[in-house]
Each structure stands twice: as structure tokens, then as C-alpha cells.
């Protein structure tokens, strides 16, 4: 923390050892600096100030008559502390705490998912009583209680440390998981047993220091000594949260956080945590497929598939369009680009979204959001839907006293005007710690927000920065790779002899589907069968981010390494791209590190693959960037009477989420969001069933008031807005 660096250094004696730490450092950390562990259950600095509830951390402090909860104390000069290592009183205190915790704990460790990686087991082993003196029946509850389809609660195991409820109320601020009743009757629960439905709910599983909150996906799935954890990066959004992929017998069993303090602080969204189950989806493509009838496919061998692919490529020559997903690894996109561009001169690609290097001049780690004093969020999408973890950083910033200005969704200029002129603009200009975030479409891949940042003088202020919340996990890396793969002019080929659809996101893109109508042939690379039925001539199996080696570049501009957690059920893309490239005399290595070395030479300044490490660092701000113009306020057409419809891609949507049964409850209800103003003008009670009409289509949806919406705008999740145009009529 920046404020700490200037703090006075104090000396604290702990068990006779001296620790020198900045004044105000927590005693648990101070002890750690002296190499001494003060055991804890409830203490978790990421949850906010300590609460001193569990009493596991009792220590003796000179000058204080009673044992003290170490977690609530901070270092002061000359403080003399004795922990259980040297103080019999503290040891007795900790032993007492454990005895009390275990009075009602079932000790069902043999059948507990937490067993083997359980803080309660570990601390009892080290500090606890060797015998049970309680002879009374322990409390028993119905179990497990489904807190949600993803989380199970075993109340008997709960030690009431309040970590989960603090996360819910103080970090995610959803206040859905709470403690109920009082004293020894207290239980953890949701309102009327409704599911805990919130984007970050799964974090409570990891926070639980016992086996009370467990993952339904991981329930009875593995013992800790049978598993391997692979440190990699989530590939489901542009944040790139660092994750640990737990595997057993070649299968991913769970995803856990791997705290990168600048990116995710150890939190994950539920999509990233539970979405991995799409790897085992029933419609997974594992062998190459060739269309053998209008909607029929036959499997073919890899040799035959590569022959077929070769023929398709040769026949199409330069008249190829490649549609990319932004979920490819940088290396995969580069390999494909090199094959097509160098081997065939087929330079035309449809990129998943715009990206702009201009942001690099205003680069900051995501964690800088919490340090900021003024943050302006522009654009039409709630942050949580694009880059969920950023929502937690914004909440943390607000709690730390920052002002977060969020432009109403659907504002005609997306909030740009207020940032360029007026009181807010002045404050942004004057602030040393201000941040702009573009959350939504239409930001020219970050060029727009970079232009605004430049205009506000952010380039010269190291505490000020700008972020574009991109739509794809590796849009930037894919764009870099495609550009680096070869030199050559991009020309729109006419006619399109071959459309290559790389990945399931591209396959789901209506624009790509439209291109497919114009193309003579379609070659698709896809994990799943269903979206392609009927329109791809050749399907080559795709892999997931958990099955690949390679790199992704996140929205900060940070390159991170994916590590293969499990072997895919098919060769990975780079393997067959290399083989196919060979047939065209193009050298593509099947090994990600070697491909990366080639890319790095061309566009990442020779950055070393292994040097990226398990916790990637953020490159310095670049100063050699052409600063784009700020966005021009776009006038949006208004139609009398109707509401302008914004459709959005919800957080819980997409090919992965669709295939995870446990996540279905998180998908958006068939709702239309209206501004409070429109709802009252239309005399709609919240929850009313309404019909939404446009283009001769009518959809039945439930009305909900969203206070963040501008008047005249309605919002519907894309999956519930099919057939609706840009303007809708809403009626009872």
C-alpha cells in the first residue's frame, strides 16, 4: 500500500524474536515477519477490518491483563507479544477455543470434502485438545442444505466464523448470505431458503475454513492427496483471473482462485469458478466431422480431415475469410494466421471486436481502481456483465471513500459529454487518482476512452488511467498475433470460397452466420456440435482454455500464461495447424513456447515465455502511442412513443455457461428492464407481465425497474430479445 511505505518502522518482540514492520501492521502479519504463525479462522484481511470472533488468535501482550485477539491488534513500537509458542496462557486460550469449536463439530472428516485441506483439521492437529470431553449429543441438522445449485451447506460443520456472511455483505455487497437467530442457535442461511443468486457467490466456498460450504460440483469428487493443481488463467472474460485448476485422473474437478493481487485479489466470479464443466458437455466434438447430409455429419480420421482441409484451402486460395473468436490463444491465432496469410495470401479476418493499443499509454493494474478517488464508468453495460471482477474493485473503491460516477445506461452520448466539459471534467483534470472505464460496445476497442484520457491529461499522471472492458478474453492477443503473422494487404475477397470459423463464439455471432451464407464452403473449429449443425462443411474439434498451453492478453494489456490442466479429448489446435501448415510449406511449431518466441520477437519486444511466470507483471506504460481522438457524441435516433432497446450479453451466458447445469439458475430471467420514469409513465408495477413488440414480433417479459437506466431506454438480455428490433413498444 502506498500510504504504508512512508510509515514509521516499529519494533515488536514476538516470542523473543524481533520484527520490524511499519507501524499499524496487523499483529498476524507482524508475527509472520518474525517467522511465527498466529493461527486464525475468522481473520481474513480481504474481508475488511478484523472482527475478533473466533478467538483462535489469542496471544499475551505485555501490559494487558487478558489474552488478546491477535488479529485485532496492530504493531506499536516496543510491543511485547507472546504467542502460544512461549506463553502457556495463550496456548491454553487457543486450546480452549478449539475445544469449544469442536464441542459441536461432527468430526466427520472421513466423508468431508474439506478433509485434508481443512484449516480446522490443521489447527486442531497443532494446537487442539487430544481428547473430547463433551459427552452430550452434538447438534444435528438436516444436511446438506442447498444454498444454491452450486453450493451446499452442512450446518453441523459450521463454526460460525462469519467469513461467508462478511463476504456477502462487505465484499460482494449482495447481502444474501446471512446469519440468522442468536447465540448457539445461530445459523448461516439465505432469505427463506431462496438460492444464493449473485455473481460472486462461489467465493464463500473457498473462504469457509471448514467443510460447511462446499461446491456441489466437487462434492465427493476427490481427496486432496489424489489431485493436482495447475496454475493457469481463466479464459471466460477479459480480466484473466488467476486460477488453480484442480484435476484428478485427467479431469478438471474444480476451479479455485490463485490470488493475483493486482488482478483479482483472490476472488472469482461464478462463471469462472463453475463454468469449467462445459469441458464434459455431451455435444463436445472430439473427432473431425464432415457433413454428409443437410443436417448429418460423419466422423472421419484426422488424416482424412487434414486432407480435406488441405483441399478446401487450396481450392479457395486467397478467397478465404477467417472469423476469429478472441478465445484462441495468441499462439493459436498466430499459427492460423501464418498458415493462411503466408501460405495462401489469405489475409482477410473478421476480428471478434475492435482493440486499440492506445490504452497502453494509460495503463494501470486493476487494483489501482481501489486506490483511486474518482472513477467514471461510461458505456451501456453494467461492469459486472463484461468484466465481473472489476465490479468488486469498484465496490472496494467506494468503500475506501472513492466517488464512482456511473453514467445512466442508454444515455445518448454514453456519458462522454460530462467527462469532456463541466464540473466532472474539471475534477478529472485536477485529480491525481482518477480512472475512466468504458463498459459497453462502441468504444472503438479502447481508442475512445484513451482519447478522453489523453484530453484529460492522464498520460502525465501515473495515478490516473483508463480501461476498456473488452468482450473477449484474448481479443488483444489475437489481434496482435494475426497482425504479426505476415505482411500483406487485407482485401475483401469476392466471392468467398471458404469461411473459416475459429471457435464457438465466432460460430454464435450472427454476422459470421451471415458470411457463411455467402461462402461456398465453411470450415469450423469448434468445441461443440450443436451451433454448427447444418452450415459447416468440415468441423475440426476445438479445445478449451483449460486444455491449452499458450498466452492470453487481458484487458489491462498484461500477457498471462495458460497452462494445460488436462489433456483435451482431441489434438489441440496448434498441433494440427502445424501439420497443415507444413503441407503449405509454412513453418509453425506445434509448441506454444516456440510460437510465442516468434510472436514476441515481432511484437512483444522479445519477452521470454518462461519469464511471464505464474504471476504475470504488467508492462510499463507505453509512451509511443498515437493518441486517438475522443469519441464524438453520437446522436441516437429517437422514435416517438417507443423505447430504445438495448440488448446485452449477460454474464451468465455463452457457450460454456449454457452447458453447465449448475449455472442455469444464474441465467437472466425473461425480463425487461425499464427506467423508473418509464415504468411509472406506463403504469407498470414491478413484476408485471408485459408484452414487448417490434417488427411485428411480440415477446412476453416481466417488467423490472433498473435505477441505472436512462429514461426512454429498455434493456433485455440478448437471449430473450430474439426478433426484437432497435425500438420496442411496451404494454400490459
Amino acid at each position, binding site marked *: 500500500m502506498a500510504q504504508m511505505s512512508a510509515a514509521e518502522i516499529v519494533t515488536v518482540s514476538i516470542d523473543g524474536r524481533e520484527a520490524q514492520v511499519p507501524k499499524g501492521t496487523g499483529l498476524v502479519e507482524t508475527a509472520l515477519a518474525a517467522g511465527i504463525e498466529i493461527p486464525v479462522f475468522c481473520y481474513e484481511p480481504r474481508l475488511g477490518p478484523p472482527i475478533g470472533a473466533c478467538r483462535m488468535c489469542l496471544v499475551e501482550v505485555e501490559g494487558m491483563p487478558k489474552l488478546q485477539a491477535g488479529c485485532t491488534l496492530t504493531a506499536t513500537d516496543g510491543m511485547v507479544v507472546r504467542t502460544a509458542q512461549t506463553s502457556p496462557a495463550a496456548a491454553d486460550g487457543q486450546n480452549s477455543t478449539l475445544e469449544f469449536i469442536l464441542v459441536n463439530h461432527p468430526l466427520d472428516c472421513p466423508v468431508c470434502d474439506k478433509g485434508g485441506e481443512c484449516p480446522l483439521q490443521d489447527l486442531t492437529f497443532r494446537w487442539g485438545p487430544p481428547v473430547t470431553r463433551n459427552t452430550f449429543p452434538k447438534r444435528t441438522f438436516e444436511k446438506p442444505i442447498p444454498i444454491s445449485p452450486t453450493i451446499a451447506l452442512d450446518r453441523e460443520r459450521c463454526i460460525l466464523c462469519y467469513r461467508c456472511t462478511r463476504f456477502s*455483505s462487505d465484499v460482494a455487497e*449482495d*447481502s*444474501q*448470505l*446471512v*446469519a*440468522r*437467530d*442468536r447465540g448457539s442457535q445461530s445459523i448461516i*442461511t*439465505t*432469505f*427463506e431458503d431462496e438460492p444464493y443468486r449473485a455473481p460472486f457467490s462461489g467465493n464463500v466456498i473457498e473462504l469457509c475454513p471448514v467443510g460447511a460450504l462446499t461446491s456441489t460440483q466437487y462434492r465427493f469428487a476427490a481427496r486432496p492427496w489424489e489431485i493436482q493443481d495447475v496454475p493457469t488463467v481463466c479464459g471466460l472474460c477479459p480480466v484473466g483471473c488467476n486460477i488453480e485448476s484442480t484435476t484428478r485422473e485427467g479431469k478438471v474437478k474444480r476451479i479455485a482462485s490463485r490470488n493475483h493481487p493486482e488482478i483479482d485479489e483472490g476472488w472469482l466470479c461464478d462463471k469462472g469458478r463453475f463454468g469449467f464443466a462445459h469441458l464434459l458437455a455431451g455435444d463436445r466434438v472430439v473427432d473431425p466431422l464432415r457433413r454428409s447430409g443437410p443436417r448429418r455429419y460423419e466422423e472421419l480420421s484426422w488424416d482424412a480431415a487434414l486432407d480435406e482441409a488441405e483441399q478446401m484451402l487450396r481450392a479457395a486460395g486467397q478467397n478465404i475469410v477467417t472469423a476469429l473468436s478472441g478465445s484462441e490463444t495468441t499462439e493459436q491465432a498466430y499459427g492460423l494466421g501464418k498458415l493462411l496469410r503466408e501460405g495462401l495470401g489469405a489475409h482477410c479476418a473478421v476480428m471478434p471486436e475492435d482493440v486499440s493499443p492506445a490504452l497502453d499509454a494509460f495503463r494501470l493494474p486493476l487494483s489501482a481502481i481501489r486506490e483511486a478517488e474518482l472513477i467514471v464508468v461510461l458505456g451501456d453495460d453494467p461492469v459486472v456483465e463484461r468484466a465481473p471482477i472489476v465490479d468488486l474493485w469498484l465496490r472496494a473503491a467506494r468503500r475506501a471513500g472513492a466517488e464512482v460516477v456511473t453514467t445512466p445506461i442508454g444515455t445518448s452520448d454514453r456519458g462522454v459529454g460530462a467527462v469532456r466539459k463541466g464540473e466532472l471534467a474539471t475534477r478529472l483534470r485536477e485529480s491525481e487518482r482518477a480512472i475512466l472505464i468504458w463498459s459497453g460496445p462502441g468504444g472503438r476497442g479502447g481508442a475512445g476512452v484513451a482519447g478522453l484520457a489523453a484530453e484529460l491529461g492522464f498520460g502525465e499522471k501515473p495515478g490516473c488511467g483508463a480501461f476498456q472492458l473488452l468482450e473477449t478474453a484474448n481479443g488483444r492477443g489475437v489481434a496482435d498475433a494475426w497482425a504479426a503473422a505476415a505482411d500483406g494487404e487485407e482485401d475483401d475477397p469476392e466471392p468467398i470460397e471458404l469461411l473459416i470459423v475459429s471457435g464457438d463464439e465466432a460460430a454464435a455471432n450472427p454476422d459470421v452466420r451471415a458470411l457463411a451464407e455467402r461462402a461456398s464452403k465453411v470450415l469450423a473449429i469448434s468445441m461443440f456440435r450443436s451451433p454448427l449443425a447444418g452450415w459447416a462443411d468440415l468441423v475440426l474439434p476445438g479445445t478449451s482454455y483449460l486444455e491449452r498451453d499458450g498466452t492470453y492478453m487481458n484487458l489491462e494489456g498484461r500477457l498471462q500464461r495458460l497452462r494445460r490442466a488436462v489433456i483435451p479429448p482431441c489434438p489441440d489446435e496448434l498441433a494440427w495447424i502445424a501439420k497443415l501448415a507444413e503441407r503449405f510449406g509454412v513453418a509453425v511449431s506445434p509448441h506454444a513456447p516456440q510460437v510465442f518466441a516468434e510472436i514476441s520477437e515481432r511484437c512483444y519486444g522479445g519477452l521470454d515465455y518462461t519469464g511471464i511466470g505464474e504471476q504475470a507483471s504488467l508492462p510499463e506504460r507505453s509512451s509511443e502511442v498515437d493518441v486517438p481522438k475522443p469519441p464524438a457524441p453520437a446522436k441516437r435516433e429517437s422514435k416517438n412513443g417507443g423505447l430504445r432497446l438495448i440488448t446485452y450479453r449477460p454474464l451468465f451466458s455463452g457457450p460454456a455457461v449454457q452447458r453447465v447445469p449448475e449455472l442455469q439458475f444464474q441465467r437472466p430471467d425473461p425480463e425487461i428492464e425499464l427506467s423508473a420514469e418509464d415504468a411509472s409513465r406506463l403504469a407498470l408495477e414491478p413484476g408485471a407481465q408485459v408484452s414487448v413488440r417490434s417488427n411485428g414480433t411480440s415477446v412476453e417479459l416481466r417488467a423490472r425497474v433498473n435505477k441505472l437506466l436512462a429514461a426512454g431506454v429498455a434493456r433485455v438480455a440478448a437471449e430473450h430479445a430474439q426478433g426484437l428490433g432497435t425500438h420496442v413498444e411496451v404494454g400490459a
Partner: protein
Amino acid sequence: MSLRDEIRAAAAQYPDQRSGVMSGLGLAQEQYGWLPPEALAEVAEALDLTPAHVQAVASFYDMYHLAPVGEHLVEICTNVSCALVGAQQVVEAFERELGLRAGETSEDGKVTLRTIECAGGCGYAPVVVVDHRYREPTRPDDVPGIVGELNGG
């Protein structure tokens, strides 16, 4: 004034309207007689809180009823000072007269009988609180009269 407006008006006394949850629960309980889930949700909605938080708060305090209670509430303090001077005999007298055990509500929903912790009437023990009005001291002999009042009223 609607319940929502009353709750909001009471909360407006505080620098932070979150502080209005207890007065809100009190008002909702006055209206509903107890606090069914929809009442909790109403308090939550009025104060921009989650129903879960409101329930968490309500369940912490003894005076909020999360299960239905009778039209009349008879509460007997059985803490030390009252116990020492015969509170249990008063409990038993009520149990006899009402045909209920402490903790129960009569089948017709008319009366709930329960014991409570110290009501702060230790010098006038045993303390009985009928519909939030202190009757102190109450002797076993007084019980039939009180029950008669409840049945008549």
C-alpha cells in the same frame, strides 16, 4: 400513509437510513401482528436492504415474532428476581387457566403464553407483561382475573 412511507419516514430520523430497520420492523409487526416473509421483504424494499439482511436482524431480537403469535401476548418473566418470589407458580397458574404450555399459542389464535427474560421489574416481582403492559407484581391469585380480561376483551 402506507407502511412503506411510514418506514421511510421513521428511517429519515437517522443519518443513515439503514438504522431504520428496527423501527421498520416494529411498524411492520404492528400492521401484520407478526413478521411473515412478505413483511420482511416490505421492510427491505422500503429501506433498500435485502430481505435476507432484514431477516437476519429480525431474528436476533426476541420481540420480533417470526412465527405467528396470538391476538394477546402474555409474557412472564422467569429471571432470577422473579423466580425467587414465585414466578414459576405464576407460569403454572397461566398454564392452567389458559390450557397452554409456556411457548404455546391457543388453538383459536387468541393467546400466546411465553416466558421472557428479565423485563426490568425486579423490585415488583413477579412481573407479567400482557400485550406489552406491565402487570407487577402478579400473584397466582391474580391470574384468573387477567385471563378473564383477555377472554372478555
